[in-house]
């Protein structure tokens, strides 16, 4: 082999190494992305902390409209519940007490019932003497928009209208107090 051929050979080698690296990188990236997507598939439709809370409008038991965006500037404590859900019922009195304490500080509670009848929701509200508005998501559209799976789920919306925290499962009174403190406007 003569002298001139040597750099040419090195060039070829370099080119080959670069090609191989690129092809492998693309393939591994594609697989990594697929695995990542599959691992997060469950949560992918779920809202994340920091997202803008999807706006909605629902009617409460007195017939008043409650539009989420009307509460901008206040912290909103969205509690998704049903009368059949025991932990939901358990945390209601604590929520009510904390609502009394925080309502003057700009924290609003909206209890969103999942598609039950007016009668059931009304008698539940009466039984527990709830003072915050209770709205009914008749078509489950808000539930779908918020990708709510287990009940109870509580979505905390800060005064900017962004999601501050998502809580699934029952909360203690201390939890509720802490959460309301978090979304209280300055």
């Amino acid at each position: 082999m003569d002298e001139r051929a040597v750099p040419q050979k090195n060039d070829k080698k370099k080119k080959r190494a670069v090609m191989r690296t690129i092809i492998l990188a693309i393939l591994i990236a594609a697989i990594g992305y697929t695995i990542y997507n599959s691992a997060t598939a469950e949560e992918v439709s779920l809202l994340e902390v920091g997202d803008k809370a999807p706006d909605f409008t629902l009617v409460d038991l007195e017939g008043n409209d409650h539009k989420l965006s009307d509460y901008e500037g206040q912290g909103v404590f969205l509690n998704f519940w049903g009368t059949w859900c025991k932990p939901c019922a358990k945390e209601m009195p604590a929520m009510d007490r904390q609502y009394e304490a925080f309502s003057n500080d700009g924290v609003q509670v909206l209890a969103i019932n999942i598609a039950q009848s007016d009668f059931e929701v009304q008698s539940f509200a009466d039984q527990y003497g709830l003072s915050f508005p209770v709205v009914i998501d008749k078509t489950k559209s808000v539930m779908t928009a918020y990708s709510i799976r287990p009940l109870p789920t509580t979505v905390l919306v800060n005064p900017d209208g962004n999601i501050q925290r998502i809580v699934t499962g029952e909360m203690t009174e201390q939890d509720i107090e802490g959460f309301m403190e978090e979304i209280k406007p300055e």
Partner: protein
Amino acid sequence: MENLQCQCGHTNPPGTKLCESCGRSLTEKDQNSKLVDMRYEGTARRSQTYNKSIIDKIWNFFSSVKVGVSIIVVLLVAAAIGTILPQQAFVPASTEATIQAYYADTYGSIGRVYHALGFHDLYSSYWFIALVGMLAISLVIASLDRFVPLYKSLKNQRVLRHPSFMDKQRIYGSGPAAEDTLEKAETKLKELKYNVRTDKNGLLAEKGRFSRWGPYVNHIGLIIFLFGVMLRMIPGFYIDESLWLREGETRAIPEVPGYYLENKGFALENYTGEGGEEVFGEALDRVGTVAKNYQTDVVLYQNSEDALPGAADSQEVVAEYPIRVNQPLKFDGYAIYQMDFRLDELKAMTFALTNKETEESLGELTIDLINPVDNYELEGGSTVELLGYYPDFSGFENGEPQTATPLPNNPGFLVELTTPETPEGETSFITIQNTVEPLGENDFKLTFLSADTRDVSGLTVRKDSTLPILGLGGLIFMIGVAQGMYFNHRRFWIQQKADGTVLLAGHTNKNWFGLKKDLDRVVEYASLPAYTDQQDEIDKVEKAEKEGETLS
């Protein structure tokens, strides 16, 4: 590794078996064998040539067919394991804990192990996806590693080959021939649709080279197919959601923002064997009922553009459609299929207010279980006040009636009955076939008369934007298969030496019978020397040897 210099002067990459230029065998083993190994034209698989950096090592690992086949075998075994018990998507449980309990309860310790090993969600497990991905890497690299040298080799092949290349071809012949033999052979080969190239005293006739690309086209199809499958994991490309919709209900369609579906009614029709269906009579007698139609009449609504979720009066009717099996409601890239149903869920119950002693009725009332009201006035001045409603009564807790679900599976009512005779009211707790009188013996009771029911439609919401990609992948795959299976790459090399002797060799990647038929016609027309199939000779010798062994 060093480059290999052939006697003809050509420099070959390391690992080459047959000189790229003249075809001489380059290794001792090949020189001594009777026939040459023509796979990949004796070129060096690119991966075999260098093995230095970590990239090269990974590359070489995936280039190996053995590795590829091993991955396929592991995938097959894993996929088979996934079919032993139902996957979690098909078990009647939805949360992590209930799914685990379901496997343990239904399948015992096998189910427990199956769940513990993660086989209940095998096909979307990270290791299964990783295996499929490794198969994709193997397909790409193994193909590239073989296709590129093969392509180059076939593109650059010379007409004149060294006699040692020719006499090691399976089809070989040599002998004296007339002077115009080459020209005549060329004419005949062209007539047989061969591409013929000549160089000095030799010719190369070739046909169907594209069939050699079959496996690689095939692999491209597979890669496209796998790419389509990969897209399914990416949000927005693939939706497969189920929606249980009761008659009369309107619900937001999951994963389809802004759309609502109302169930106007579900119908299950069976074949009756009457009215033109007499032909089915015999079959119906044999098997009993046969379903003729499952149908859900639906109305599709869409939120007007700026309407918010939950807003009641902002929905516009988009379509009314009877969804039947295989006749989905299609809109905007989505399709809603009829998949399942449940008949006769309780919807309303009718009671009579009766005097326990005289069994005289004071009137009837119907309680709508979906939307009960709190007061029912009866004609004779009696009233029934609903104090509590428990759609799926599950017992008492601290004296408080409980409901297990929001569905009216086992409705319980706490009522106060007021009649002209008992103006102060009587309290009664009613469930199906049971009445409790918590505040003492009553004079009146509610007697169950009848129940209304409604059906539930099980619908599936589906969107699959990857179908065209999967289709394309499948088509290319099939083209590759046909290309490689139904066409052959045939070549003949013919040389005439100065003394008039003709050397003749032939090669095909498959269908040697067809090659010989072509060659027979050329031999006859151009009076070429007779040829032999050297593989046959070898086989014969081996067979004879074997027989000899058994005899001795």
